[in-house]
């Protein structure tokens, strides 16, 4: 559309200025002339007509504006032309869109009748004897000035009527004006055959532009009164056309002047207008002009008009499609990679968590073995005692109490084993609503033997039941044991070793604080305390606190340290929830 706008702008610039400047002078009448062999040729052909009109109608000043069909159409659309002299095809298009009307049809005084004035000549180089008829054009390259050239269209009708689909069965080479270009394309072998307006060939021979026998016309048809070789049926000559805005008196005056024109040698004369029915037939057959399917006309014309832009647009579209495909491929690939990385990270996280739990369990294992040994020793001893009493003839009823105690101790050992097994379990449980109290009691129970072995007194305050939290029970235990273990190591050198474990509800969260009476944090340790692999212990992994904080944060809580005077306090908190705990 850019190009059309540009044309309109040129037309406005060309016509606006003179009209305004010479208001007092004779009224200017603008006559558009289709220039199919360039502006010069057009002027040469029609100057005599304009001269005649100037003589016959002196109070008008006639001005010739030559251009392509597209240019003239734009000028008509911009109301900048009063008349046109154009080919029948163009006239038909204007007739539909701009109420164009033919007021006269050109006539060669010595030549054909007005209704059989124009056709097309299809020619090949003379040294191609195998091409004789229109039917032989199948699969060949055809040169013409433009897709909308009238001669070309006349020839297409002949091809179609012989069963050749021009678009599919031939290749078109459009060389542009002037018509000499068509001759050159055939001569240079860029096309196998050329299509030009009737009589153009003879004219070129006469002008000496081509040799007399250089080209041979194929599919010749009777040319009637037209003294040229033609390959198509004949159509009326060019019309002299008014458009919607042409003043009727002016049209009448001009028509009368045209009919009265007495042409000289090689000059055009004007006869009563033809009905142009044969041209309509032609256009209907080709499905072009007013008969083009609506969308195809728009798109096809637009693309042909703007082929450079269309090419660029096509390239852009191709690039865009490629880009989209590539981007979507990359996105899928990256998503997969990200998913894999995420999975790996999660797995590493789980493995690290498990490693830390195993390491904590390792530190507690010997104390826990001792802890399991206690009930086992009790069980064995009760059992042996029973045995001896039975041998001594004791009443079995008297042994009931001992047997019950055996069962209690077996359960006690089983509990310890269960807690240990749960704690080193590998698959993490999802976070579910739980009462945290049993988990905290279990954590303390796992830790107490170790504290006892190290002569550490654990002062714990854990309510028997607490409001629900959403938590992974195992991770909860892990954090608490980790904090207790750290506290135990902190107090190892103290005379009196004390650890506090306090659990309380603090507003909408659960606070678990672990305090110790150790010597406090090493200077500078506080800021690195939660870094992975930071450790002050000889055999520490340096993962405990960093992992504990990660776990706390994954539960929507946190882990802080308060290096107070006398007691270092680690505070682990997670939010309470409204829902009831799952049992």
């Amino acid at each position, binding site marked *: 559309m850019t190009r059309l706008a540009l044309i309109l702008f040129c037309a406005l610039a060309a016509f606006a200025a003179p009209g305004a400047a010479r208001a007092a002078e004779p009224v200017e009448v603008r006559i558009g002339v289709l220039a199919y062999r360039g502006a010069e040729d057009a002027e040469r052909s029609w100057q005599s007509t304009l001269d005649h009109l100037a003589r016959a109608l002196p109070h008008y000043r006639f001005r010739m504006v030559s251009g392509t069909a597209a240019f003239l159409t734009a000028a008509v659309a911009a109301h900048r032309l009063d008349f046109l002299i154009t080919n029948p095809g163009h006239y038909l298009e204007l007739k539909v869109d701009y109420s164009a009307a033919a007021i006269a049809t050109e006539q060669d005084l010595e030549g054909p009748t007005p209704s059989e004035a124009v056709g097309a000549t299809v020619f090949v180089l003379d040294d191609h004897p195998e091409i004789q008829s229109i039917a032989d054009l199948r699969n060949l390259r055809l040169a013409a000035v433009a897709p909308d050239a009238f001669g070309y269209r006349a020839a297409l009708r002949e091809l179609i009527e012989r069963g050749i689909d021009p678009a599919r069965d031939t290749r078109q080479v459009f060389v542009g004006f002037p018509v000499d270009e068509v001759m050159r394309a055939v001569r240079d072998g860029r096309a196998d055959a050329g299509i030009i307006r009737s009589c153009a060939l003879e004219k070129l021979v006469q002008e000496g532009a081509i040799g007399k026998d250089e080209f041979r016309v194929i599919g010749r048809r009777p040319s009637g009164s037209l003294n040229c070789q033609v390959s198509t049926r004949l159509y009326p000559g060019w019309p002299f056309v008014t458009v919607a805005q042409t003043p009727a008196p002016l049209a009448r005056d001009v028509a009368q002047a045209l009919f009265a024109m007495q042409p000289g040698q090689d000059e055009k004369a004007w006869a009563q207008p033809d009905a142009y029915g044969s041209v309509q037939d032609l256009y209907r057959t080709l499905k072009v002009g007013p008969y083009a399917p609506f969308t195809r006309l728009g798109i096809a014309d637009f693309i042909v008009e703007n082929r450079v832009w269309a090419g660029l647009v096509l390239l852009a579209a191709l690039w865009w499609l490629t880009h989209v495909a590539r981007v979507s491929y990359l996105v899928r690939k990256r998503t997969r990679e990200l998913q894999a990385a995420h999975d790996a990270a999660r797995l590493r996280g789980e493995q690290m968590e498990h490693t830390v739990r195993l390491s904590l369990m390792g530190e507690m294992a*010997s104390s826990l*073995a*001792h802890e399991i*040994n*206690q*009930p*086992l*020793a*009790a*069980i*064995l*001893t*009760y059992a*042996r*005692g*029973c045995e*001896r*009493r039975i041998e*001594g003839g*004791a009443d079995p009823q008297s042994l009931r109490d*001992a047997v019950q*105690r055996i069962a*209690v*101790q077996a359960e*006690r050992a089983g509990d310890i084993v269960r807690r240990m097994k749960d704690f080193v379990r590998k698959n993490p449980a999802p976070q579910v609503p739980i009462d945290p109290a049993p988990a905290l009691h279990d954590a303390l129970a796992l830790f107490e033997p170790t504290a*006892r*072995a190290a*002569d550490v007194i654990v002062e714990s305050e854990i309510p028997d039941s607490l409001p629900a939290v959403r938590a992974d029970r195992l991770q909860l235990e892990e954090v608490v044991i980790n904090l207790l273990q750290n506290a135990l190591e902190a107090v190892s050198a103290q005379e009196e070793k004390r650890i506090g474990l306090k659990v309380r509800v603090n507003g909408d969260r659960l606070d678990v604080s672990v305090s110790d009476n150790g010597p406090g944090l090493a200077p500078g340790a506080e800021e690195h305390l939660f870094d992975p692999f930071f450790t002050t212990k000889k055999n520490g992994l340096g993962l405990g606190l960093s992992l504990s904080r990660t776990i706390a944060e994954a539960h929507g809580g946190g882990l802080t340290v308060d290096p107070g005077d006398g007691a270092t306090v680690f505070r682990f908190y997670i939010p309470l929830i409204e829902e009831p705990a799952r049992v």
Partner: protein
Amino acid sequence: MSEQAPIIYIVDDDPAVRDAVGFLVSSVGYDYRACASGAELLAGLDNARPACIVLDVRLPGVSGLEIQRELQNRGAVAGVIFITGHGDVPKAVRAMRHGAIDFLEKPFDDQILLDRISDALEASRATLAQQGRREKLERRLGALTEREREVLALVIAGKTSKAIAAELDISSKTVENHRHNLMAKAGVSSVAQLISWATDESA
């Protein structure tokens, strides 16, 4: 001196363990007393009865080894058997060096424990008997005057009255008087009997 019935002290901070050991020893007829800590043991220890202490090495507060030392300081007659959750070799060595009867690892074999208890009670009885004899001699000798004890020592050494008089720088007559008094206090009629009275606790 009539011998008292033995008693087993069981010291363990784990109520189940001390209850179970008590159950075992009572099934073979022993008296027992369960203690949760060393302090409880020391407070209730009857040093006049043959006794065995089944002592857990690991106790809160005062450890088993520290209790053993305290028992020695007090001259306790009870034999000590250590029980432990772990085979703790250095502790076992220390315990045995200080006269422990055995060092048993939990869970222990009931027969071995009872055998060791029996051994411990035997040792305890022997200690208690020796202690009784020593006390008896000390009581006998405690009834003598200082001069009489000096004369007795020289009589036991086989010195004649003359030699004793010369050594103690007293008259023979005075020596004779002391000998007479000694014979009377010991309730014996001969020098041989007097020597036996003064040296043989079993007499």
